[in-house]
Each structure stands twice: as C-alpha cells, then as structure tokens.
C-alpha cells in the first residue's frame, strides 16, 4: 500500500516536471521588424526602401520584353533571348513579335508600400533634422513617381492610389477605383517629382536617388508625356472609347506644357555635379565603351548595381560567342545593319554600285564613327585575350554590282553553289577557311553564329575572364540615367518648343564626344510626312541621334511607342545583316547587305501604342473599363 503511494507520487512527480515544461501556443515569429524600428532611423528607412528600389520599373539586363521585370530572379539567362532590343529590332535576337504579350505590369503592391511610408512617416518627424526628413519624404515621392511612370508609359491613364486601403474593413465597391485620365496621370507624376526635386538632398551614394535623379526622371517622363500629347491624334483612335474618355491620349494643346517641364528638368540636372564621360580621350571609341563600365563615371546620375554573389546578371554570358568569349550558351543576338548605318558608316559600294574591296576584313572600321566602334565588336577586335573572327563565305570571283547578290538570296546567279562557298566551322576551300571562327556558319542557328556580322560591345565587361562568363556572374551596373540621355531629352523637348539652336548645341556636345565627322549639322527645317504627320528634318535628326547614342540601352522601343510610329517603323521590318566575303580570285574582302537568313521580320501591331490593361484586374474591378484600343 505505501509502496503504491510512493510509486504514484513518483509518477505524478516526473510528469509534473514534464507538464511544467509545457509549451505556450503563443510563439514569437522570428525576424519580423515593425514600423518604429524602420521609420525611426535613417538606416531603417533605407532598409525599408530597398524593396522599392529593387522593384523599380527599370528595363535593364534582366528585363523580359514579354514577361516584364524579374528583379531578384537569379535565373535571367533567357532575358536576352527575349530582350527589348530584340523585340524592337535593334538587335537580331531569338524571339521577335512579343508585342501581343504585354507584361501585365501592375505594381500597386509597391505603391502601397510607398504610401504606407508617406502616410506614417510624419509620426516620426521629431526623430530627424528637417533636411533629412524632407529628403527621405522626397525620396519616397520619387519612388512612387517611378512606379507610376512605369504604368503610364504602358497604359496611359491608371487608377491613382495615394491612400492605404484596408481590404478587410472597406466595401468591395470602394476598393474598385477607376482609371484617371492619361493627362492627370502624367500630372500626378509631375507633382511627385516636383516635390522630390525641391526636397531631396543634393548628393547621394551611387545607386541612391537625389534631387538630380528626380529631375532626370522628370526629364524623361515629361518628354514622353509631351510626345504622347502631340502625336496620339495621328493614331486613328479618335472613335475609340478609351480615347474619348481621355484614358489614353491628351489634348495636343497640352504638349508644350509637358515639353517645357522636360526642358526645365534638363536644365536643372545640368546644375548638378555631372559631366559627359571623357576619361579615355583621345581614343573616343574605347572612351565610349568605357563609359558603361567605369562605375565612377561622372556621367552617371543613377545606376542599378549588381554583384556576382547575391544578384548577378547574365548579359556577358548571352552577348558574346561561346566558347571563346563565354562559358555559357553564348551570343543570343547581334547588331542590325539598319542601326549601324545610322552612324558614320563606310560605304559598302562604290560609284558603279560594285562592292568596295577591302584588304583586311577589319578595314571596315577605317571610316567608321568611333561611337559605333565603341558600341559593337567587329572582325579583329579583341576581347578576353581572343580576337573576333567573322566571315560568311567565299566568292570564287565577284564581278558585277552588290545588287547582283540579291540580299544574299540563293536564287541569285552569282550565289550559285559553284561561285559562292558557304560552310561550317573549320571548313576550307582551296586551303582557305570559308568562315570565321565566330561565324557565319551554314549549319548552325543564330546562337554563337555572327548572323549580323558583328557583336554587341556596349556593356560587355572586358575584365571578366572567359571561365567566369556564365549565368549570374556579370556584375556590370545598369545605368538608369546618364547625362547623355538628359542632353538628348532636353534637345528634343527644346526643338519641339522651337528652341532649335539650343537643341542642336546639346546634339553637338554628344556628337563631339562620339567623334562624329560633322558635330554640328545645319538645322534642316524642311517638313516631311514620313509617319503620316508633319515632322521637320531637324527634329528627325535629333530622334536619330537618340538611336545612335542610346542604342541598346532599351530606349528605342519607348521612343518609337511615344512618337507613335512603332507600328510604321516596325511594319514587316527586316533585320539586315552586314556580311563579309573573301573574293578568292582577287584576294580581297567585300561586305554585302543581306537579309537575315531566317527571313525574320518585326511587326508591331497598331495597338502596341498602349498595352492591355490586365484582364484579370478588369474582372476584379470592371471600373477599369474601357479597355485600351484593339484588345
């Protein structure tokens, strides 16, 4: 009996212990920070802003033309198969005609994050000196504007949200916000940026915005807005519901107001500590190439940085041929001849229309604009210890004009198998290699096969050894805003405002640095009707200057779009190829202008002027109707 008691005691004792060690169901989540920790200190705010900066609508190395922004996606190796440059025909890439997709960009989650800050930050005002407080508040407005312009340039008018809505307590009705007019949307962006310019600090570390960066965004956005106001009328959308509702397009009379904003913003930027990059003078070609690699460049206003550890990109792995320059799949595209010929470019034919004879393939560069040489790699150029080696084939003999080659068509008599030798890597004709080491090979697709006769040099990191040229190992910064662009924005806005001389002074500065033959061309005011609307040759020249200076910086598509000419420029547009042949009986080289071998064309549908409002969002919120035209 007693023993039993003891046992019972013992038992209850042991499990008494166990139970006393009993867990609470209330557990503290680990690694969660609250508002006070974040908004209370400048560092906390910076940490809070990281998610916003990272998700800014920046079309850079990892932007997918058909899938949109994928920040933090560490698997961007397909980005240059589906690049904006490829889509808009600047380079000959793998997928074209991605216009139908639209990227469904709808960043209101980040806009909410900014709005939370803008609404609650005043509660922490006493923790900061006025300057810092204002600067941070300005920064938030800059970030918000950035997200909105990312939508405005796609959709026109979008819902403008400045409050933080609570989906639990708010009625479904209230949660459904309708689109603002396109002009109100751009005006909203203007107001945010104006505030930012007035309140942000003068300086900042690279990768962080300051008042001049805000001004740069102002300059670009307002230039877009001006173009949209002025040229949307020519799209033939007048009868469209969205157009009539003002959700797309603006009253042409508003154009000058926006151009003025852009112009002033440009002047504002010039008051900052920035200058065109000239460190590598006198060699203007390598100077231009370096401007995209030198992280300390005086021309950079704002860059998006990468490191090869957490967030690297794949640009190098995708733009130069494998295996000589890349340890990954290698070149996904090359520069298109139409664009090369925008620069000072050697004539490929003589007076009789015969192909010009060159002693060396690399002689093509003798008469070429340095800026182009800094933008593309041609035969003979050196990278990572190897030389580019590009040739398509051999003509046993070439008598007659360039025309006779019929853009490379096999049907042309002169291209008979007997006279034109095409081949694969290492293949020879009378002990002369038929192709170069990097193309163009007869038996391969475009990857690593210099289909366009040259490769992209802009942004290629020459310091990366070939064995490290692979997925996510590139750490070149993407330059979001540089003074060069701002000059051209100001120039175009100025010209649209009638300030022709001022405009061309900016163009001159750019062309001076580019090493063009003629730095300040005469201002030609003859009006043409190329795009179904009147445009002065002088203005066209400035537009082309953008095409030259900003080539492959993902401006071209937005320019075509906002000039309202995308559907006309990209109307069955062929990628033409610069193609080198060795003329056997002469021992000389010729360059021909050929149609890309897959006969691929780019065609932008009319509706690409605006993207489709995401259908899923319309289903959730019918107030977003009317949909943009032709969707």
């Amino acid at each position, binding site marked *: 009996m007693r023993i039993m008691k003891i046992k019972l005691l013992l038992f209850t004792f042991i499990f008494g212990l166990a139970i006393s060690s009993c867990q609470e169901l209330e557990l503290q989540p680990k690694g969660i920070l609250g508002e006070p920790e974040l908004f209370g200190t400048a560092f906390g705010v910076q940490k809070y802003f990281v998610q916003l900066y990272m998700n800014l609508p920046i079309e850079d190395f990892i932007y997918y033309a058909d899938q949109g922004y994928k920040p933090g996606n560490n698997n961007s190796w397909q980005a240059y198969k589906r690049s904006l440059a490829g889509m808009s025909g600047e380079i000959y890439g793998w997928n074209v005609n991605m216009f139908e997709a639209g990227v469904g960009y709808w960043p209101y989650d980040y806009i909410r994050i900014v709005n939370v800050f803008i609404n609650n930050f005043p509660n922490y005002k006493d923790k900061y000196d006025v300057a810092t407080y204002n600067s941070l508040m300005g920064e938030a407005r800059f970030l918000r504007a950035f997200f909105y312009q990312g939508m405005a340039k796609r959709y026109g008018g979008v819902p403008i949200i400045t409050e933080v809505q609570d989906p639990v307590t708010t009625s479904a009705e209230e949660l459904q916000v309708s689109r603002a007019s396109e002009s109100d949307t751009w005006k909203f962006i203007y107001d945010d940026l104006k505030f930012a310019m007035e309140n942000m600090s003068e300086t900042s570390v690279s990768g962080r915005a300051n008042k001049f960066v805000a001004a740069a965004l102002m300059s670009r956005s307002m230039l877009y807005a001006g173009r949209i106001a002025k040229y949307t009328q020519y799209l033939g959308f007048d009868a469209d519901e969205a157009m009539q509702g003002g959700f797309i397009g603006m009253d042409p009379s508003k154009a000058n107001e926006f151009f003025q904003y852009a112009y002033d913003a440009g002047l504002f930027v010039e008051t900052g500590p920035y200058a065109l990059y000239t460190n590598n003078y006198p060699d203007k070609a390598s100077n231009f190439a370096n401007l995209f690699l030198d992280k300390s460049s005086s021309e950079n206003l704002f860059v998006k940085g990468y490191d090869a550890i957490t967030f690297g990109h794949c640009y190098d792995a995708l733009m130069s041929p494998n295996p000589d320059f890349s340890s990954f799949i290698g070149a996904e595209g090359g520069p298109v001849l139409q664009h090369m010929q925008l620069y000072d470019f050697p004539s490929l034919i003589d007076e009789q229309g015969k192909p010009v004879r060159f002693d060396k393939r690399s002689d093509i560069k003798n008469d070429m604009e340095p800026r182009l040489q800094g933008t593309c790699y041609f035969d003979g150029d050196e990278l990572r210890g190897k030389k580019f080696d590009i040739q398509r084939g051999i003509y046993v003999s070439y008598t007659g004009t360039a025309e006779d080659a019929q853009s490379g068509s096999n049907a042309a008599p002169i291209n008979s198998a007997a006279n034109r030798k095409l081949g694969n890597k290492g293949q020879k004709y009378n002990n002369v290699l038929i192709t170069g080491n990097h193309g163009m090979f007869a038996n391969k697709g475009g990857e690593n096969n210099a289909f366009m006769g040259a490769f992209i040099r802009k942004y290629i990191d020459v310091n990366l050894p070939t064995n490290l040229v692979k997925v996510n190992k590139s750490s070149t910064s993407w330059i979001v805003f540089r003074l060069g662009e701002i000059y051209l924005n100001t120039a175009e806005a100025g010209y649209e405002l009638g300030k022709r001389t001022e405009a061309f002074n900016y163009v001159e500065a750019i062309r001076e640095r580019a090493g063009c033959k003629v730095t300040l061309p005469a201002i030609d005011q003859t009006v043409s009707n190329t795009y*179904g609307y009147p445009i002065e040759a002088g203005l066209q020249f400035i537009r082309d200057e953008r095409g030259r200076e900003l080539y492959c910086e993902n401006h071209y598509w937005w320019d075509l779009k906002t000039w309202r000419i995308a559907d006309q420029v990209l109307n069955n547009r062929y990628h033409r190829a610069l193609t080198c042949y060795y003329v056997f009986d002469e021992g000389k080289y010729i360059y021909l202008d050929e149609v890309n071998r897959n006969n691929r064309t780019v065609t932008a549908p009319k509706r690409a002027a605006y993207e489709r409002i995401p259908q899923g969002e319309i289903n959730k919120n019918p107030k977003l109707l009317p949909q943009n035209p032709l969707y």
Partner: protein
Amino acid sequence: MKNILYLILAVTLLSFAACQEIDNWDEPSARLFGNVIDEYTNHNLLMDNNDWQIRIIDRTWENNNPGTVAQFQPLAVMRDGVYNNSKLFSGIYDMLPYDGPFWPVDTVKGIILDKETQQNFTVKPYLQLTNFTATLDGTNLTLSCNVKAPIVTDLPNLYEVKGFLSLTTFCGNSNYINIGEYNNLRKSINKTWAAEVGAADSKDYTLGPFPVKSGYTYYVRIGANVNALSRRYNYTEIVKVVVP
C-alpha cells in the same frame, strides 16, 4: 437487408459512372452565324480568314451575375465573309463588327441566341479594289488593280497597297508568304486621299515584279488599307497562278 444491398448497388453504379466522365459541366452548343455583306456589291465582303472579328457581348451573364460586366468574345469571320460559331452558350447578346476594313457600324443589341440564330451585317468598305490582273512573265509576276474610295470625306490616310502571294487557296494578310523580297514591293503611302489620288475617286496601282518559283502554284491578290484602327485590308478577289 435486401434494400441495403440494392442501395449499395445503386450507389456503386452512380460513383462508377461519375468517375468515368471527364467533366461534369455541359459543353456549349448554341450556333450563331451569318454574313457580312458589302453594301456596294451586295455580295459578301472579300477578306481573309480571321483578319478581323465580330465582337459579341453576353448580356445574359451580366444579368445573372450582378457586379460583373460582360466583356466581348471575338467571333472569327471567314474569307467568304461568312461567320459561324457552333460552340456558344444560349443567351442574349449584343454584336458589333469591329476593326474591319469598313466605316464603323453600330452595335446590334439584344440578339437572342437560342439553338441556332442567324444575324447578317451590311458594311461600307473604305476601299474597293477592282480590275485585278496578275501577269506572269517567266518567273516574274506583276499585279495591278484599281483602288477606289466610295466615300472620300473623313477617309483616314490611305496607308499602303500590298500584293499578297500564298501557297494555299487562303490568301491575304492572315495567310501569305511573308518574306522581304515580296513585302518590300508594297506601295507605302500614308497620305490623305487628296494628297495621293487628288480629285479623282480612284487610282490604278501596279505592283511587282514578284520573283516566283517555277513548279509552284500561287494564289495571289492585292490588298489596300487606310490608317484606321488596325488598318485591315480591303482585297481584290484571289487569282490562281501556276508557274510552269
């Protein structure tokens, strides 16, 4: 006892059947069809398959589901100007031929689609293409036709005149040999009718020569468009060209 067994048997059969069918929802089965008629010729409009669509808006859905706003489904129109879709749900629809090569028309409201419903539309084409000729000289094909604008006032810019070659009986902007040698032979205009044609209401255009291959059979036509919405084409009829 017995009943229980019967019950079980019944349930078995049910679940057996249930498991076998792929989908437990009914497929759509109502048919909507009709013609798109060219007001000038009184024949069906000449076009290419699915160049443009008729928008139908399902009002029944809207009425049965408050809070939703019905959005259009596109109905493809075929080359002979006939449209037909036999997999729709019965209901009340609004219909609008949209973004076609003709002057805008009004939405036809409240069409009741039961098992089978026919609905025709009459449209005024922007352009009429007539006197189409295709002349073959060896392996060079030349196309010509007359382009007429029945209504010139407010006519959007005349945009381009383009020859279409196809290897099948389908020929037009949705089915053609899309290569540089051919596309570059189109005539790009993008001018007002007055600027391009002047006072006259029609003008002849000749395109080519198109290099064609011997041993091939082509189906060819010319299309012309004005700068309205998606710039759909008005066409000539199709001609078969056999290259010896």
